[in-house]
């Protein structure tokens, strides 16, 4: 590093050159990878879709009808949210699956699969993708702990509203040792999804019937 003292302009040009090269490199990688990443996530979504349903439903070969809705406040994302209505051939809904987002994860939004019966009882919640701290917040993954299973069978009103929170905040859901933000974010996101479903149930089912009819014709 015995470079002679260069002029300021020369140094600036060097920095500019490296910054431009880095920008090209990162942009290139993004360009090269973002479609594949989206496809990978899509594949993971479809692979895991039925994991949040009642086991009896999984094997009946029902086709999920895909809808998209947008509700930033309750579903956690400004982007359209995928909702799958699992219905019988004559259009009777058997289950609903939301791909909700918990926008207030510790490092990044957490994407969730939330499975419901048509009456709004939770049949399962799974984490699709997250960036929580390894060893602390990542216990929300089913393969690392069964924390996420405590939502099964819950619904709005059961537990009653003030208890829809982690135990640290006086609720019924276990917090995770060393990670408070993560469980809080997920509990809130699941509750908000239930609220959304309660408000829009009829619209969703009507839209699903419509889509199923169109697909048949």
């Amino acid at each position: 590093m015995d470079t002679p003292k260069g002029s300021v302009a020369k140094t600036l040009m060097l920095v500019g050159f490296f910054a431009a090269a880095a920008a090209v490199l990162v942009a290139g990688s993004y360009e090269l990878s973002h479609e594949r990443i989206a496809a990978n996530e899509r594949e993971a979504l479809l692979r895991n879709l039925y994991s949040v349903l009642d086991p009896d439903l999984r094997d009946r070969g029902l086709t999920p009808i895909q809808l998209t809705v947008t509700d930033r406040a309750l579903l956690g994302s400004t982007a359209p949210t995928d909702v799958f209505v699992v219905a019988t051939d004559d259009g009777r809904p058997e289950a609903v699956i939301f791909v909700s987002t918990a926008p207030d994860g510790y490092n990044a939004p957490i994407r969730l699969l939330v499975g419901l019966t048509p009456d709004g009882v939770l049949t399962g919640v799974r984490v699709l993708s997250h960036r929580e701290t390894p060893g602390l917040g990542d216990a929300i993954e089913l393969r690392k702990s069964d924390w996420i299973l405590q939502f099964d069978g819950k619904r709005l009103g059961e537990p009653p509203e003030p208890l829809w929170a982690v135990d640290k905040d006086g609720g019924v859901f276990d917090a995770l040792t060393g990670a408070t933000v993560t469980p809080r974010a997920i509990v809130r996101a699941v509750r908000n999804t239930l609220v959304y479903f309660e408000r829009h149930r009829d619209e969703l089912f009507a839209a699903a019937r419509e889509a199923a009819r169109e697909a048949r014709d």
Partner: protein
Amino acid sequence: MDEIRRTLNDGLWTSNPALVQLLGLCPLLAITTTAAYGFALGVATTAVLVVSNLVISAVRRALVPVVRIPLFVLIIASLVTCIDLLTNAFLHELHEVLGLFIPLIVTNCAILAQAETVASRRPVAISALSGFAAGLGFLIVLVALGALREIAGQGTLFAGAALLLGEDSDRFTIELPFDGVLAAVLPPGAFFGLAVLLAIRNLLVRERDPSRLPIAEEPATAAERTP
């Protein structure tokens, strides 16, 4: 040949980033709750160290001393971002396991130290080897500390190792006949665990060569040791 041996020895023992330079402690202390996590972070760090040393060494003649540190940071951060994106796209299975650890590497000053002391002065091949050795040295400490905390904290060893190797079984996990104390898993346990490892290393060094302490000594401690 001698240089290769010396480079390896440096990274693994003489100036091990975690035990001697005490660098990269932020991810080191945060992640080592189990041996498997330590291993995952170690692998990701080693990969980044080798690539960043390669790139920085390749452009070392173009770097101007006054702006070298910002440029190192720029290069390392861009590389980590690219590695994160590309593994997510093309090695998705691996990314599901290691992906959480990759962003933590940007904060690892061991990488900056390698850039400053090795990659910006030495030829490409030696720099890459040095990065590999330092990464490996870091990995060994991560796994040791993770194992220590896992045994003391939850009475298991290699729990979750199956995840890293792409199997859903627990056949790698060794269950020990006690439950462990939570404190070992919590942050204080990380400091105690690292202290134990440092003490062991210091002991070994002193035994081999009583005349020197591994860590820069203050006059007072030197005086204490003289009978």
